[in-house]
């Protein structure tokens, strides 16, 4: 159910290795827990982040949540469409609903994250 080629965090973010950049978003589980997303705050392009820094915010009708960097790096692009259409995340959390892209990610940090299978097991404990 969760895309096999992604890595996952305990705070329900996903990260994808696109070769030159790594793409980050929130999982379907996170989007479902939040409900209809109404507001997204994205990091500034150029920001250097460390693993687990809180870098973005998501608000839904009933809750607000922080999004943490799954790995350290520099923010090189953000998905500005989400500013006016945050509902894209609910509709397409793994594709169109990506939040930001990172450069300079440490291989070791990326490898330390959960695989899709491990994330499935983790979800069962929630």
């Amino acid at each position, binding site marked *: 159910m969760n895309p096999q080629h992604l890595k996952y965090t305990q705070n329900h973010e996903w990260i994808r290795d696109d070769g030159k950049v790594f793409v980050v978003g929130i999982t379907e589980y996170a989007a479902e827990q939040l409900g209809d997303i*109404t507001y997204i705050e994205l990091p500034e392009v150029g920001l250097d982040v460390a693993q687990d820094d809180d870098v973005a915010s998501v608000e839904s*009708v009933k809750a607000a949540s922080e999004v943490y960097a799954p790995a350290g790096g520099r923010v090189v692009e953000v998905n500005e469409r989400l500013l006016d259409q945050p509902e894209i995340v609910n509709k397409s959390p793994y594709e169109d609903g990506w939040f930001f892209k990172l450069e300079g990610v440490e291989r070791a940090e990326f490898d330390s994250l959960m695989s899709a299978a491990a994330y499935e097991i983790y979800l069962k404990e929630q």
Partner: protein
Amino acid sequence: MKAVLEARHVKRTPLYDEHILRGAKMTEFHGWILPVQFKGILEEHHHTRSKCSVFDCCHMGEFRLKGSKAIRSLEAMVFNDMICLRVGRCRYSSILDTCGGIIDDIIAMKLSEDELFVVTNAGPYEKVARILYRVCLATDVTAGTAKIDVQGPLSRRVLLDLGLREIEPLKYFTCCRTQWEGFEMLVSRTGYTGELGYEVFLPNDLAAPFWREVTAHLEVEPAGLGARDTLRLEMGYTLYGQDVDESHTTLEAGMGRFIDWNSDFHAKEFLIMQRELGRYKVRTGIRSMDRRAPRPGYEVFHEGRPVGMVTSGSYGPSVGYGIGMAYIPVDLSMPGTRLTAGPKDMEIVTEEFPFYKNGSFKG
């Protein structure tokens, strides 16, 4: 959540099975299990403003008051007239304690010269039931009465399609008896959404059959508490227990215009004094500068000084920005006052209710 839903003291409405069949997300609300959402809060909100939604409101209280003595006794506890209320009319009011504190807000419906039907909220139900029995010998019909709210610009058409012919000429804030499949129902043209809408009162055992038929109508979708909240917030309507309670008077709640100062009620002297002094925190509309919502519990600041607190707040789906209500000093409450709220000093501005100005409720 599972533990809460299975606890024996939590009540199910007659529509519980219908909601489960639809896969609704459920929650506990003042001792009742109710749907928060079906297809999604935003979708249900927009559907209500454009077509017609139905809401399970079986958790609310209903009482019958018979005889002019009973009605007069109620009148002594509320801020407006009930005796002269014309047959077929509805009136918004509040049951007050002797210091003007709001025990509950109610809608009263005059069914005949000497019969009043009173609708109350789920939160203070036990206390209100005690008071209405002690003082008015009211008959509590809550347990056997179901309520389904039918709200949206197409709601009149929907109910006429279902055969409830008597509702056609109903004006805003009036009520009538009507029929569905030969069964008698009571309908008021009232609601909590700001759209053209009706509240349908029917016996419990008719609730599920009626719900099934109304939701089968092409223009109708079920909606839950989530959308109910965003809809009422956009209109500036209070949620009892969150925006108003016994610690607030009618003036503080910003509802002084509903008070009939010619009526005699026990809290009147107190409210007269409060009105003359004019120094209290009043419930005021606030909005944010973007999509972010002010949240309940956020402290409100004016020029850095704490001046009040947000009681309700959310993103307003029909207006496109964050909206809410906060109690702030009267002299800061005129529209356009710049304030900040919450731990991140969110910029907010006071704004008059309703936030959403295109509601069809009077149409």
